[in-house]
């Protein structure tokens, strides 16, 4: 590739052909502001904040969308450029609610930051805000169209990364709006509530549905017993909210913090993750034996399940009938655990802490009442828990640590893996391979790790090759699903996670911009797995006890009643 030398604010820099001015400037240490630009997305060039002067060109050039050419002389901070940027900011701000003080993105808002950077202290244009109702139609995410700055980042992620196509544009000119398809409520659109749009949004136009108040009400009620389960990906990312590297927060510290907030019992979704492997592993073996409904798809991810329901309703029998770990846990906490602990299930408030916005939706799915109660009463995301910690003055990184409550707190390294794309597959393979007899010597299945969109591997069970695939991001899932629809899928078992990188990149996680951040969290997952004494789901002693004391056996009638389900799309949130 040809090397091209350009001058940026007088700094000579040489970059490969095809480099944008924005990239070239970053390389030369020159900061150019952006808003619609997103490092993991196609260039849209619609906000025009990044305009710069290019010698010999009449108009200003969008740095994100202009490729450098030999000898180009670029100026990024002339009076004309700064005035144009400030005008554009004034235009955006004149229509943006000025409620920064009580906005959930206060302090993390990209627009707020730009306004500060460009010292926009007055606005020549009269304020003219949208007066639109908020969209509370989904249990997972809330859209505040009033705050939208029309950067299209949410549309891009929903369309290109997820192929969900729930968001689009309506109207023209000044009335242009981002709306759910055909301008319906979000819940009526194909939205799967994965929440990737939340990460994409530079402002607070899309957020999780906040349930902190609901939680605090339960905690403060002396009659209620608040029990929580924590998903594996939560703890790793939570550190970031308090300035730590992914994974720095120890599980004991998190348990300690949650107890201090007022949770009565802190347990682990991980326990149910191990349990899932027992059930799902056997289900796989059964299907392999019978050659029925193959490939089998995992069903841990509610965003993926809803995606399959919306786009592939005819192929739902390929999904494992296993509930997700959250819902297995929920069904057990008000039955088995309540019995064990001698607590009236009526009094239990089952809270789960998840990296995920779709989990909020999963918890209220009409099928999820197998304990005869709502199996999970409420779901809080990692971000909500972080807010709760801040509000209560707790820095979990500084806590000494405490231990989880008895029963349903034990977990293996396999369960931890659930937090990263490929983890369910790896956990399942560890168990399934050993169920066939013998002991695995090498238990790391590196082929299914990492950020590659579709990962595949072949394992041998009883000498027969079993082909497995792992997809994260729904666009990749779509590719595999299309193969199934066409009758051309070469696979036997497929793991799908809706979010890029799996749950570590979930819609409820601390705001995540790039795949690089996701990869770092992934690494933290593998580090933790490596550090655990037991790393295979079938080694979980508490799960063994559960089968002995309560369920009878794997795939027993009772297990089916509590731990399995059949999915069909319920459009209405009833």
């Amino acid at each position, binding site marked *: 590739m040809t090397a091209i030398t350009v001058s940026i604010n007088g700094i000579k820099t040489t970059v490969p052909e095809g480099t944008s001015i924005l990239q070239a400037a970053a390389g030369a240490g020159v900061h150019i502001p952006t808003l619609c630009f997103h490092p993991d997305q196609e260039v849209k060039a619609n906000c025009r904040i990044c305009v710069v002067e290019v010698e010999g060109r009449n108009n200003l050039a969008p740095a994100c969308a202009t490729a450098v050419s030999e000898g180009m002389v670029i100026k990024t901070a002339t009076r004309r450029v700064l005035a144009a940027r400030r005008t554009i900011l004034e235009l955006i701000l004149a229509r943006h609610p000025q409620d920064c003080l009580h906005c959930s993105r206060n302090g993390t808002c990209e627009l707020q930051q730009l306004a500060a950077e460009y010292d926009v202290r007055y606005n020549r244009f009269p304020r003219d805000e949208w007066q639109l109702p908020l969209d509370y139609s989904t249990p997972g995410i809330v859209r505040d169209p009033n705050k939208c700055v029309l950067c299209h980042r949410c549309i891009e992620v929903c369309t290109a990364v997820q192929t969900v196509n729930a968001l689009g544009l309506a109207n023209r*000119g000044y009335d242009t709006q981002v709306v759910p398809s055909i301008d319906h409520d979000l819940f009526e659109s194909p939205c799967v509530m994965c929440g990737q749009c939340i990460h994409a949004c530079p402002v607070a136009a899309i957020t999780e549905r906040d349930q902190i108040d609901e939680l605090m009400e339960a905690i403060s009620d002396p009659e209620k017993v608040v029990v929580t389960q924590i998903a594996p990906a939560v703890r790793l990312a939570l550190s970031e909210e308090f300035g730590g590297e992914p994974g720095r927060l120890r599980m004991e510290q998190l348990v300690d913090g949650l107890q201090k907030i007022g949770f009565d019992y802190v347990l682990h979704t991980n326990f149910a993750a191990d349990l899932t492997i027992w059930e799902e592993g056997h289900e796989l073996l059964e299907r392999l034996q019978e050659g029925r409904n193959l490939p089998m798809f995992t069903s841990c991810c509610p965003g993926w399940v809803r995606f399959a329901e919306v786009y592939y309703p005819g192929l739902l029998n390929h999904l494992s009938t296993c509930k997700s770990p959250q819902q297995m846990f929920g069904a057990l906490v008000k039955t088995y655990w309540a019995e064990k602990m001698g607590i009236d299930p009526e009094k239990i408030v089952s809270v789960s802490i998840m990296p995920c916005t779709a989990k909020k939706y999963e918890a209220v799915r009409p099928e999820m009442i197998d304990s005869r109660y709502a199996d999970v009463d409420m779901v809080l995301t990692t971000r909500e828990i972080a807010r709760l910690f801040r509000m209560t003055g707790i820095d979990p990184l500084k806590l000494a640590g405490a231990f989880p409550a008895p029963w349903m707190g034990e977990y293996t390294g396999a369960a931890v893996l659930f937090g990263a794309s490929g983890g369910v597959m790896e956990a399942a393979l560890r168990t399934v391979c050993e169920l066939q007899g013998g002991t695995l010597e090498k238990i790391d299945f590196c082929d299914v790790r990492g950020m590659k969109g579709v990962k595949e591997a072949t394992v041998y069970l009883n000498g027969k090759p079993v082909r497995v695939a792992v997809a994260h991001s729904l666009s990749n899932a779509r590719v595999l699903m299309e193969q199934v629809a066409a009758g051309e899928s070469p696979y036997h078992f497929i793991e799908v996670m809706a979010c890029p990188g799996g749950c570590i990149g979930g819609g409820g996680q601390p705001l995540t911009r790039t795949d690089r951040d996701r990869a770092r969290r992934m690494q933290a997952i593998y580090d933790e797995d490596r550090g655990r004494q037991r790393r295979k789901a079938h080694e979980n002693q508490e799960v063994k006890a559960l089968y002995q004391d309560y369920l009878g056996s794997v795939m027993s009638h009772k297990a089916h009643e509590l731990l399995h389900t059949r999915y069909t799309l319920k459009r209405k949130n009833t």
Partner: protein
Amino acid sequence: MHSLKEMRREFQRAFNVSTNRVKVAIGLGTCGIAAGGEKVWNAVNEYVENEGLDVDMMSTGCLGMCYAEPIMEVHMPGEPRFVYGNVKPETAVEILERHLKYGRPSPEYIVGQDPRGFEPAPNIMELKDTGFFKSQVKTVLGRCGIIDPEQIAHYIAFGGYEALEKVLSEMSQIEVIEEIKRSGLRGRGGGGFPTGRKWEAAYNSPGPKKYVICNADEGDPGAFMDRSILEGDPHSVLEGMAICGYAIGADEGYIYVRAEYPLAIKRLRKAIQDAEAMGILGDNILDSGFSFRIRIAAGAGAFVCGEETALMHSIEGKRGMPRVRPPYPAQSGLWGKPTNINNVETYANVPGIIRKGADWFAAMGTDNSKGSKVFALTGKIRRTGLAEVPIGISLRDVVFDIGGGIQNDRKFKAVQIGGPSGGCIPASHLDTPIDYDSLIQLGAMMGSGGLVVMDEDTCMVDVARYFLKFTQEESCGKCTPCREGTMRMLQILERICQGQGGPEDIDTLENLALVVKSTSLCGLGQSAPNPVLATLRYFRSEYEEHIFNKKCPAGICVELLDIIIDPAACKGCTLCKNVCPADAITGERKKPHSIDPEKCIKCQACIMKCPFGAITKG
């Protein structure tokens, strides 16, 4: 290959034979129909049948003389062709009664005659000598209004498809491109990019699949050049597209035409069908091995779809929204394939260039702008219509010679050229030659050819407001400056027109206009401020009058009007008092009346009613 030549001779013979018959032609383009051409047609038809006359009736496209529609022509064997204007059903019958039965033309209705080689009738002006046609050239519009656009035979008889034949039989792709380059043809849709270079880029893009697109999404207010060509001579566009297809190596073309042009679509469909039936379009055209099909894509009327990338999105079924260029369509266009996009008039120019040669074409026009350009003359001009002029002609010639000057002897004030993306040019620049570069110098642009003439009763702030309202509503909403900025400009203009403008408004407006112009993503936003910048440049004092003196010098901005009764001229007849809907006028009979400005709604009904001219606006 010789079959088309033979056919042409045959069609020419047939056409010549038909000239020896009595023929009545009626202009039934959209303009003719709107003026009542169909009623004339029906009346004539009924008359001919009732009288049992042996007459050929023919419908034609637009001759360009919109001011004289409906137009009816009468051809008698051995006589000139007489063109009657402003024909009503009754007068048509009256004219025919005299002309067909007694051989007596009716000079009072005749706009001109075309001798076509016969002895001209005395005392009747020849069409080409009339003010309207004198300075015009007829290359692109040569056949419009002469042939029946729904008869492929007419097109072929008039030299149609000769260029395609020539290209397929004796020219290489590169030779075609070189010929177009040499002609100096530039895009007639607005930007004025050299057509030959565009074709060359598409030719150089590798790939087995390429597309040719004809942009017929004519959306400027007051522009109807493309519509007239499509309605009056659709085959010329098809031929131009096919030649382009051959030159760049495409086998498929799309005409993106707005759905508001149903007649154009109908005629295009017929033209495509007829051409395919004759083997002029479709597979293995004229046994040359070259295949080319043309499809029609009807646009839903978004102005921004005239922008090439938005247009392609629209054909692909996506929201009509422009994207960043590069890549240009020549590299990655429709469905990601190399694509050449030109507008209707550009393609319609191509067959002539191939047939008569690049030199013939380049002889017209100026150094940097060759050939002719079709303009749609509208506004306060006497002769509205469609005029094709050599590029480089002065604005004065167009407005005063062709257009006949200003209606009602009012004073000329400005001409808006280039539609909402263009600018207003004042009287002081009337002698500017119309070419791509001179117009840009003046803050306007050639655009697609809309020319709106304004007289002294036009408020330039109001004009800017009008165009801004248009572009604001037509903005696709993608980029911030165009979506938000044009609206804010519009708000300021509205404020000024309502007398609520503040001293800082001109600065803010100018400032904002420059930002929108220099930061918008596509041509729509980049040119949307032009009407504001041009009026600020040439008519700044009008803005200032509105803001500082709260006056609208042209008397257009209602909120700034004072309706005053001159007590010396008022005879106290009470007519104004009776007509006033707001009870704003008081006064006793035979005594001067007065208007309560608080109550007055400025409807001006009193001004129109007053027999003494005593009421004025100021």
